[in-house]
C-alpha cells in the first residue's frame, strides 16, 4: 500500500487537489443524486396513482354524462308517446323518427305489448323470427320493475333484419292510450354500444394498462380482452373489484404487480376498473436512476478533466520552481527564466532568483578576492627575497669594506640579517607591530648606509606598551618607506627626514610614515590612490598591494590614507584593527 501510494506520489499538490476535489464533488453529487432519486421516484409513483385516479374519474364522468344524456332521451321518447293520445302506430313511428334522426347512436326505438307483440318501431324494420324477445333481459326487467329505467349489458340486437349491432338496451314499462283505455307496454331504446366501447378503448394507462367495466354482479360490460377471456386465453380476477366501490389496491400475481383502481357509476352500479402495471412505474424509477447514474458519471468525468487541468496549472510553476531549486542545489547557479504562475509563486520565484543572483555575485567576489590575496601574497613572498635589494645592499657592503669602514659593514650586515629574519618570520603572515617596526628600522638602517646618511629617520610610539603588541600584516611599512626614499628623498637637495609613527587612535591602530620629500602632484597622487602607479625599482611591492592585503584581511574600513603636497612631503597612514597578540605569539 505504501509503495503504491509512493508510486502515484500521494503528496503531490496535483494529486491532493484532484483527489480531494473529486472526492468532494462525488460526495456532493451522490448526496444530491440520492435526494433527487428519492424525490423523483416518490413523485413518479404519486403521479402514477394520481394519473390513474384522474383518468378513471374522467371515464366515469364521460360515461355518467353519456348515460344521463341517454336517460333524458328515453324520458323524451316516453313523454312523446304519453302525449300522443289516439295516434296511430304509423303516426307515432313518424314522431319517434325525428328523435332517432337527431341522435346517430340510437339504433332503434320500439314499443312492445307485455306479451311481446311489436306495436311500433322506428326506424321501421322487419322483425326477425326466432328473436325470443320476451326471454331477453331488457324485456324481463321492464316487466319485473315497471318504474325504473333499466340498462342492459351490451349485447347483439337481433330483433330487426339488417345488421347485427352491439347495443345497450334501455327499457321500462309505459302506459299507452288505446281505444280501451290505458294499456301497459314496454318501451325499448337501443343505444349503439360503439360510443361506450370507443370511450373505453381510447383510455390507456401507461403502455399496457387498460380500463374495464363490470356490472353489479360481475358481468363484463366492457373489457378490451373480453374475447380472450371468453375463449379462456386470459383471465381477469373480478372478485375483489366486486366487493369494493371505490379505492385502489395492489394485486400481485406470480408474473406481475398491478395497481387496480375502482370507481362506480352510481346510476347503474357499473364499476370502472383501471388496471395499471407497476413495472411501468418501476421503469420510470429505473429511468430516473439511470439518468442520475449517467449524470453522475458525466459530472465526475468533467470534474476530473477540469481538476486535472486546474491542478496541473496550479502545480506546474511550483514544480518548475522546485526544479530550478534542485539545479541550484546541484551547484548550477546559471541564470534561468522567471517562472510565471500565481502571484505567490511568481513572488517566490522572483525572491529566489534574487537570492541566487546575490549568492552568485558573492561567490564571484570570493573567487576574485581569493585570487587577489594569493597574488598579493606571492608578491610579498617575492619581496622577501628581493634580489635587487640584496644586490644593492651587498654592493654597498663591498664598497664599505673597500673603504675600510668595518663598523658600517657590521651594522649593515647585522641589519640585513635581522631584516630577513623578520621577513621570513617562520612563514607567518601576521606579526606584531613591534616586529614590523623592527623590520622597517633595519630596512632604514640599511638604506641609510646605502644613501650615505642622506636622510634621518625617527620612530615615534604612542601607547607604547599596547601598540607594540598589536597584530599587523607583515611588510606593510617597508613598501611605503621604500617609496618615500626612492621618490621623495633620493632626489632631494636638502637632508631628508622620515618619521614613523605608531599609535592607537579611535580604537584602531595607526601606523604612519611621513617624509619631507618632493611630494606628489595631485595627478600623480590620484594615480597612486587608484593603484596605477608603480615604482620601477625597489621591492616591487606597491602601495596597491599593501592596500589590498589590508582590506582582504581586515575589511574595507581599514587601509591606507595618502596625503601629499609638492615640495612639502607625503604622509601615508595605515589603519589596521586593534588586535592584541596572544602571549605566546609575542615570544
Amino acid at each position, binding site marked *: 500500500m505504501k509503495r503504491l501510494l509512493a508510486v502515484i506520489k500521494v503528496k503531490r499538490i496535483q494529486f491532493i487537489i484532484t483527489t480531494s476535489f473529486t472526492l468532494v464533488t462525488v460526495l456532493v453529487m451522490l448526496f444530491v443524486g440520492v435526494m433527487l432519486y428519492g424525490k423523483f421516484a416518490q413523485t413518479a409513483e404519486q403521479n402514477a396513482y394520481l394519473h390513474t385516479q384522474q383518468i378513471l374519474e374522467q371515464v366515469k364522468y364521460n360515461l355518467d354524462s353519456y348515460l344521463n344524456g341517454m336517460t333524458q332521451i328515453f324520458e323524451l321518447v316516453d313523454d312523446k308517446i304519453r302525449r300522443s293520445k289516439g295516434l296511430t302506430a304509423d303516426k307515432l313511428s313518424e314522431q319517434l323518427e325525428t328523435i332517432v334522426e337527431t341522435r346517430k347512436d340510437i339504433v332503434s326505438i320500439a314499443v312492445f305489448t307485455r306479451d311481446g307483440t311489436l306495436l311500433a318501431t322506428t326506424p321501421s324494420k322487419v322483425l*326477425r323470427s*326466432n328473436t325470443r324477445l320476451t326471454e331477453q333481459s331488457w324485456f324481463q326487467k321492464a316487466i319485473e320493475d315497471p318504474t325504473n329505467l333499466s340498462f342492459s349489458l351490451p*349485447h347483439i340486437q337481433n330483433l330487426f333484419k339488417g345488421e347485427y349491432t352491439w347495443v345497450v338496451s334501455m327499457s321500462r314499462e309505459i302506459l299507452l292510450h288505446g281505444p280501451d283505455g290505458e294499456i301497459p307496454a314496454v318501451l325499448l331504446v337501443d343505444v349503439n354500444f360503439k360510443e361506450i366501447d370507443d370511450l373505453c378503448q381510447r383510455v390507456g394507462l401507461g403502455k399496457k394498462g387498460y380500463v374495464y367495466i363490470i356490472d353489479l354482479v360481475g358481468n363484463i360490460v366492457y373489457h378490451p380482452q*373480453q374475447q380472450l377471456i371468453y375463449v379462456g386465453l386470459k383471465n381477469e380476477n373480478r372478485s375483489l373489484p366486486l366487493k369494493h366501490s371505490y379505492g385502489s389496491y395492489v394485486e400481485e400475481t406470480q408474473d406481475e404487480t398491478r395497481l387496480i383502481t375502482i370507481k362506480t357509476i352510481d346510476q347503474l352500479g357499473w364499476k370502472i376498473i383501471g388496471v395499471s402495471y407497476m413495472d411501468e412505474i418501476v421503469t420510470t424509477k429505473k429511468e430516473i436512476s439511470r439518468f442520475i447514474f449517467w449524470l453522475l458519471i*458525466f459530472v465526475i468525468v468533467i470534474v476530473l478533466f477540469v481538476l486535472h487541468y486546474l491542478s496541473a496549472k496550479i502545480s506546474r510553476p511550483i514544480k518548475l520552481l522546485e526544479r530550478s531549486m534542485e539545479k541550484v542545489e546541484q551547484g548550477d547557479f546559471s541564470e534561468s527564466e522567471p517562472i510565471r504562475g500565481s502571484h505567490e509563486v511568481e513572488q517566490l520565484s522572483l525572491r529566489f532568483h534574487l537570492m541566487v543572483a546575490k549568492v552568485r555575485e558573492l561567490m564571484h567576489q570570493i573567487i576574485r578576492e581569493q585570487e587577489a590575496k594569493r597574488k598579493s601574497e606571492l608578491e610579498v613572498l617575492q619581496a622577501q627575497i628581493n634580489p635587487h635589494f640584496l644586490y644593492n645592499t651587498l654592493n654597498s657592503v663591498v664598497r664599505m669594506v673597500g673603504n675600510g669602514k668595518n663598523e658600517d659593514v657590521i651594522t649593515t650586515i647585522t641589519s640585513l640579517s635581522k631584516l630577513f629574519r623578520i621577513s621570513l618570520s617562520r612563514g607567518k603572515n601576521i606579526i606584531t607591530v613591534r616586529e614590523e617596526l623592527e623590520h622597517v628600522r633595519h630596512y632604514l638602517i640599511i638604506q641609510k648606509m646605502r644613501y650615505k646618511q642622506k636622510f634621518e629617520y625617527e620612530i615615534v610610539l604612542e601607547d607604547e606598551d599596547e601598540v607594540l603588541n598589536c597584530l599587523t600584516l607583515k611588510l606593510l611599512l617597508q613598501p611605503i618607506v621604500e617609496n618615500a626614499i626612492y621618490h621623495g628623498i633620493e632626489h632631494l637637495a636638502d637632508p631628508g627626514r622620515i618619521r614613523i609613527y605608531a599609535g592607537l587612535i579611535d580604537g584602531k591602530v595607526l601606523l604612519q610614515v611621513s617624509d619631507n620629500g618632493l611630494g606628489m602632484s595631485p595627478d600623480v597622487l590620484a594615480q597612486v590612490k587608484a593603484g596605477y602607479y608603480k615604482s620601477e625599482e625597489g621591492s616591487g611591492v606597491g602601495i596597491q598591494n599593501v592596500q589590498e592585503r589590508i582590506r582582504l584581511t581586515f575589511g574595507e574600513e581599514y587601509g591606507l590614507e595618502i596625503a601629499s603636497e609638492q615640495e612639502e612631503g607625503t604622509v601615508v597612514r595605515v589603519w589596521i584593527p586593534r588586535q592584541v597578540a596572544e602571549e605566546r605569539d609575542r615570544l
Partner: protein
Amino acid sequence: MRTAAVKRFSVYGLVVLVAVTLFYSCSAPLTDGEVDKKKTVALIVRMKHGDYWRTVKLGAEMAAKEYERNLNFYAPDYEEDASKQMELVQQAIADGSETIVVAPSDEQVLREAIKLTRERAIPILVLDTVGKDSAVKSYIGTDNYDMGMKAFEKMVYLIEKKGQIALLGTDRVKANAKRREQGVLDLLPRETQVELVANENIPLDKKQIGEWTRELIRKHPQLKGVIALDASTAIGVAEEMENSGLRDKVKIVAIDSPPEVLEYLQEGIISATIIQKPLSMGYLGVKYAVEASNGEAVPSLVDTGTKVIDRENMFWSENQKLLFPFVK
C-alpha cells in the same frame, strides 16, 4: 509554448464536447418514445377483407399490445392470390420483421417463406394451415379434421341418426377442406343408417351451387341434410333451399360464421355452423412469435379449437363475442 497551450486547450475543448454529446445521447431516449425501438412482428394473411381475417388481425393486435411489439399486417386483396402473397412475404422480410407469422395460400408460398426466413434466421410461424416442416416453429390453427367430425356429428343429431345426406366442397382443392372432408368420411361408417348420396366439389359460383342443389334435390327427394365444407358454399345452398321452400325439410350444417351464415342461422335455414376461433389464432400467433424470437420453446402445434353454434346458443353472451367480434 504558445502553440502548445493552444493545443492543450483544444484537447480539453474536444473532451468537453465529446462528453456533452455523450451525455445528451444517453439522456435523449428518456424523452423520446421507445416506439421505434420496438421489434416488429409481421402478420401475413390470405385476404384483406372479411370478418375472419379481420378477427385474426384483432387478436394479433391484442397480443402485440400486450407484448409491446409493432404489428405489421400484410394481406392481398383477394383470397388465394398466392403470387401477391409471396411478394408480401418478401416485403415483410425486407421491412426488417423480427418474426413472420403467415397464413399461406398454398404450399409454394409456405416453401418460399421458409426459405427466406431460414436465410435470415428469422423464426416463422404458420397460421390456419397445418403442414409439416421442421423449420416452422409452430402451427397454430383449427383442427380441420375435427371440424369435419363435429359437422358430421351435428348433422347426425339433426336428422336423428338416419337418412340421406350430401357433402359439398369447392372445386378449389384446399388442404383444410380436404381434412374436413376426411373427418366426415371417417365417421360415416359408424352411422349405418346415414347414407352419403353425394360428395362433390363445385366452383364458388352462386348460380352453379343453386343448380347443383336443385339437381341434388331432384335426384334425392328424401335428402335430409347437406354438409357444406365452407361458408360460401353453405350460403349458396341455403339461398337455394329458401327459394325452393325446402327450408324445414333439409338441414344444412355450415362452416364459419360470416354475417350471411348468421342470418340464415337465426332464420333457421342453416341449422348449425362449426366456427373456428380466428381471434385466438391471431393472438396466439403473435404471442408464440414473440416467445420464439425470445428463444423460448413454443408448442409446435396449437389447436385453437372449434365450437358448434346453432340457433339455440348463438345469442348466448359467451358466443356473441365469438360470432360478432366487432362493435359496429
